[in-house]
């Protein structure tokens, strides 16, 4: 019995189903994310570079100018 046609059919169907599932679940994730209630007054938490006090004191400089590995 030639199993190749059956195997290829299984692979084809599972791949197509997985691709569809991936697209639908991504759309569902984005939709859920959009409908999520936003926190009132939530502040942005990015875009301020941290300057470590220890390094700054030791080198007279901030990030990126501290000691390097020996």
């Amino acid at each position: 019995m030639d199993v190749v046609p059956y195997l290829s059919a299984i692979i084809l169907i599972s791949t197509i189903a997985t691709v569809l599932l991936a697209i639908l679940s991504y759309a569902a994730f984005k939709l859920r994310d959009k409908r999520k209630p936003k926190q009132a007054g939530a502040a942005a938490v990015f875009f301020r570079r941290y300057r470590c006090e220890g390094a700054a004191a030791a080198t007279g400089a901030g990030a990126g100018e501290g000691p390097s590995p020996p």
Partner: protein
Amino acid sequence: MASLRARYALAVVGLVVVLGAISVALYLFLIEQRFSLPNTFVQTSMWVLLTFLLLLIGRYMALLWFSYLNHLDGDVPEPSRLPLISILVPAYNEGAVIQGSIRSLLSLDYPRYEVLVIDDGSKDKTYLYARQFEGEHGRATVRVFRKKNGGKSRALNFGIERSQGEFILCMDADSTLAPQTLRKAVRHLVDSPSVGAVAGSVKVVNRTNWLSKLQALEYIEGLNMVRSAQGFFRLVNIIPGPIGLFRRAALESVGGYDHDTFAEDCDLTLKLIARGWQVKYEPGAAARTEAPEGLLDLLKQRYRWTRGILQAIAKHKQRLIDPRAGLGLTFTLWYMIFEGILWPAMNVFGNVLFVFVATKYGAALPLVIWFAQLTVLDLAAALYCVSVEEESMALVPYAIYYRAFFALIVDMAKLFATVEELCKFKMDWGKLDRLGRI
């Protein structure tokens, strides 16, 4: 140890021989079939896919080989001293897991360490639950801080400023650590001043359904094996959030964590490499963490990871073509682009194109061979990784679903996230709800 090494050597050589033999047999069989491919598009796509498959095999072989070499290299002697280590646990709405996490930290096998829990303005009872552990616990001291919500990276910087240890372990509040973690990780740092950090291994604690079991396998095979291979070159490119031990001087030299990416762990690692620090991998330093149990939560996590990694790469983009800051960083950045963008694109392209060609032109046999080859590769790699990490063999059969289902869904999510990042879509942290499994 010698017999263990011999076993590993035998396993790897056996694996390479078996994989090589199967691959050659499959290709000889394919060539013998003498397919008449109908047009240039189909011919070209077949060649592209075969090239992709060869690339995949090469990647697997390289990762397995260097991972194996790293294992041989991993017999680091006990350090001359065991200095104070500070463990930082940033927590935001982690009430379901924080006590389990702190409890695991109190049973670590290490003579002197402190635990700093930083509550990042939680709205639940995280702070109250953590406060119950505050004080002296024999070898460990627990201190609990509360600050205004500002994100994980700020919470970690807050902890770094208040910690006293020569080495600092950063972890996630939804993770627990194996008892030997500190002893195993600190060996790489104490007597090796050029090593700036050690990445630990991360394992999934909640293996409750098929999705979390697939992730358990992915963490072992896809993440830990890659870190192990990178560890051979001392160039681990992501020190995972759940477990990373840092030299304080290294953290200070790069100014701690930045706040401008959604993958602060990846960003910090790249900054360390750019600064010339070596980053090693220690499988014995293990964190067990919660994995998403639902598909949408998994996509949410991977979305943040993908965009965060791309943001971290973008910060260092000038180093892609300018290796003056060190070849290590340039190589690492190209590798990350390969793994983060090219690889998922190739995987999705390969699957979709092969299905299209097979459906339209009836090339059923190449399709079956393609999948057979991938499945053999995945099973062999899973077998090796599960053995090396002394994990449950019950995870190995999941390698079959891993390629056919899991990898395709995750890679498609990565591609969508890549497009959104390139288009500069807005995003937020997307914190997952904790399940309280630890």
